[in-house]
């Protein structure tokens, strides 16, 4: 092992300058994150945007690891007969161990160690650090794998780059072209999403196995032609799988199930609170195919909940209890007995409405469809399914994954720069507050863990922590006026999500463009900023069935794009 470590140290010395640059890039990116978090709010949202772009560019530079990987391998070439190590007491197996150690240290451990202070500073707990570290290492591992694809079997950077680019371009293009051609020839709609997911997963698995296999083979045997044959054969197999693999492995469903279990976390498999009653759908609206969302149709499902506490704990505010749907599964059972899973986007509809807890603008205050307990779930339909609705009516089962939020407090907040609230990795800071006429403009800078694993299923399944909203209240603790979002930007640095939001508060419901009045200015001076907090009290899944949907067809939203 000492000799292996000796080679690792040699390679660290050989690449110390590029490595130093690489670490600097990571540190600079995290430095930008720290600057954003500590901004005083006067810089303006454009500054935030520029910093965001700079951070993204630096994050792009991190992928220099692709070239560093090739440099590492080419430092002790495996092709040709002139390499220094080949006539020294260094076996291929030892060299392979050394290179793998180096890669693990530099692209696995080093970025984690460099980023660790950032995570700790952002309030990450051990669990979040573990996930963030795994994500950081996984991203670099993917880049390193790309670097390992051709570097062990070709000489020089030129060939390495050329063959990598050719492979990355050729394989997907070939698969796509063949699938298109077959679809055209057979007049078919092509493979379903689950089958495509299975093909991509299998293809990815084959690629990883082939890259590692060819690398190990090359190190142990130095038989370049056979290693290249292994890579080329695997590329052919990937094309074959991409074109012809017929079975869905339910990978997407498995991932979702796992994510739900993860999201359930500290609220495992709870039943719905006894005082809540769920009723089946009232009706469904089907749109499409065609329109703005392409060929996919939309199914809108409406359902009701009784028993939710709809008292308003704060005058002018929303209900004592909020029900937030963070995910949903939907399946259609057709008259012929065929059961078809469809994608339910539960966060739109219920999620956005439930989030609305500010004082209602006048026109919405009268809108009765916001009454507690009425929910909408939107379901994406494949074109063939949408067309089938024209002739048949399926039964529908919706499993909604919900969390129940309970009003906790309303507390005054000093509308001054620096007011800060933090729970674990989530924090919220008033970076800047300024009164102008009848308006109080506040810049909020927020921070939250933004782990990639939460995005695997297409979005954060259940944002952690309480819901806190800031409002203006008068002396009677009645929420007054309205707020308007002036700007909002988000970025993600080192798995930490950072957002900049400017809200303009007014103590009256007058439009922004109107000239300030003395009355409005006085109302603002009399009002105070309060934080309304809801905490999570339950997380559960609820199945809602409808044996016969009342389907109404609506026109899809027209697509005016060229």
């Amino acid at each position: 092992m000492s000799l292996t470590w000796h080679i690792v140290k040699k390679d660290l010395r050989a690449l110390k300058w590029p490595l130093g640059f690489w670490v600097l890039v990571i540190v600079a990116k995290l430095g930008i994150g720290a600057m954003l978090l500590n901004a005083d709010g006067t810089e303006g949202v454009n500054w935030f945007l520029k910093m965001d772009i700079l951070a993204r560019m630096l994050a792009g530079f991190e992928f220099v690891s692709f070239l560093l990987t090739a440099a590492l391998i080419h430092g002790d070439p495996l092709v040709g007969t002139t390499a220094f190590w080949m006539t020294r007491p260094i076996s291929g197996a030892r060299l392979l161990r050394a290179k793998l150690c180096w890669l693990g240290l530099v692209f696995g451990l080093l970025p984690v160690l460099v980023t660790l202070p950032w995570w700790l500073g952002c309030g990450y707990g051990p669990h979040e650090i573990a996930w963030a570290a795994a994500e950081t290492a996984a991203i670099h591992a993917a880049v390193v794998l790309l670097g390992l694809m051709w570097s062990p079997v070709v000489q020089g950077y030129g060939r390495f780059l050329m063959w990598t680019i050719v492979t990355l371009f050729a394989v997907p293009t070939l698969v796509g072209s063949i699938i298109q051609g077959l679809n055209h020839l057979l007049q078919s709609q092509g493979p379903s999403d689950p089958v495509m997911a299975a093909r991509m997963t299998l293809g990815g698995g084959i690629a990883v196995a082939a890259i590692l296999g060819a690398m190990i083979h090359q190190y142990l045997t130095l038989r370049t032609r056979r290693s290249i044959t292994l890579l080329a054969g695997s590329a052919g197999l990937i094309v074959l799988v991409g074109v012809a693999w017929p079975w869905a492995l339910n990978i997407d469903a498995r991932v979702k199930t796992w994510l739900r279990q993860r999201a359930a976390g500290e609220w495992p498999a709870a039943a719905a609170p006894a005082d809540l009653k769920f009723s089946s759908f009232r009706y469904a609206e089907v749109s499409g195919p065609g329109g703005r969302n392409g060929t996919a149709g939309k199914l809108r499902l409406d359902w009701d909940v009784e028993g939710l506490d709809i008292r308003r704990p704060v005058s002018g505010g929303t209900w004592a209890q909020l029900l937030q749907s963070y995910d949903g599964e939907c399946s259609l059972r057709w008259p012929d007995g065929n059961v078809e899973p469809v994608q339910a986007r539960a966060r739109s509809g219920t999620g956005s409405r439930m989030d609305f807890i500010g004082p209602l603008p006048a026109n919405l205050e009268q809108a009765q469809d916001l009454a507690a307990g009425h929910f909408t779930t939107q379901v994406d339909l494949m074109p063939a399914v949408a067309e089938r609705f024209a002739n048949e009516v399926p039964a529908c089962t919706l499993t909604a994954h919900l969390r129940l939020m309970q009003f906790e407090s309303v507390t005054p907040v000093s509308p001054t720069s620096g007011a800060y609230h933090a729970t674990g990795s989530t924090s919220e800071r008033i970076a800047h507050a300024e009164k102008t006429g009848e308006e109080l403009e506040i810049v909020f800078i927020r921070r939250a863990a933004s782990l990639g694993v939460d995005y695997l299923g297409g979005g954060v399944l259940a944002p952690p922590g309480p819901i806190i909203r800031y409002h203006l209240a008068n002396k009677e603790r009645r929420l007054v006026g309205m707020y308007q979002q002036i700007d909002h930007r988000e970025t993600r640095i080192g798995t930490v999500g950072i957002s900049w939001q400017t809200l303009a508060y007014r103590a009256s419901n007058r439009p922004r463009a109107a000239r300030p009045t003395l009355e409005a200015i006085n109302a603002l001076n009399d009002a105070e900023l309060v934080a309304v907090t809801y905490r999570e009290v339950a997380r559960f899944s609820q199945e809602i069935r409808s044996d016969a949907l009342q389907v109404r067809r609506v026109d899809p939203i027209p697509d005016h794009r060229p």
Partner: protein
Amino acid sequence: MNAIELTSITHRYWRTEALHDLTLAVPEGSVFALLGANGAGKTTAIKVMMNLLRPSAGVARVLGTDSSRLGESDFARIGYVSENQQLPLWMTVRQLLDYCRPFYPTWDPALEGKLLAQFDLPSDRKLKHLSRGMLMKAALLSSLAYRPQLLVLDEPFSGLDPLARDDFVRGVLEASELGQWTVLVSSHDVEEVERLADHVALLEGGRLKFSETTESLLGRFRRMEVDLNSTAAPAGDLPKSWLDWQASAGRVAFVESAYATERTEQACRERFPDATVRAHPMSLREIFISLARAGREVVRSSAA
């Protein structure tokens, strides 16, 4: 006992045959020169020995091990210096030695220091800033400091100026006095090799022409000069061992490749009864050139 044994080695690069049925033995303790013109197959033969190339046929044994199975423990006993070797140029001489040292259990720091001083190498200078001669000496140093049983030098003089060559050869000679090792040196630079080698083999077109001790080789080659007293042509056929035949008015010169004083004189008297015959010893370089010319003549005549 032989340090290296090649048995019926054939190596092809696609359709080109670089080595043909090569059988060769390098005796232990010898300084063995593998000679040949460019493209003769010297480097290919050495690469087969060092397991850098797999032979298409035949077996190579190095220090008793099949060359295709040479492992870490075998390479710890072998030193290899080649003009084509890619040294880690980003290292300083000191770093190169520091890097190599732990791989060799027999590394001798005292010898390293001695050679470093002897070769006059700047230890803190990066290899990429060294001259070609210095670079070869650095490679030689890193291959000598562990007292290898076998030192293989592949075209070590190539690209070196005369002074650097002299330094290098002196380095090898001085180093060889420090230990009992076998040296295999391939080169087309015969003059330098003559100072080093006690065994010589000649490769031509991938085939072995001969392999013998330098003493025997120098002993059996003579440049013969015959002053003719008449213009008569030589009587009878010329022996096959007479090479590089040159005739001018009243004088004939040729190279006898199987010189034995009495036998050669008798053969000359039979063919040139009235002539005066003189035999001159030849250098390795002259022998090499004569053989190369003779080879070309054979090719020409067979082509004709």
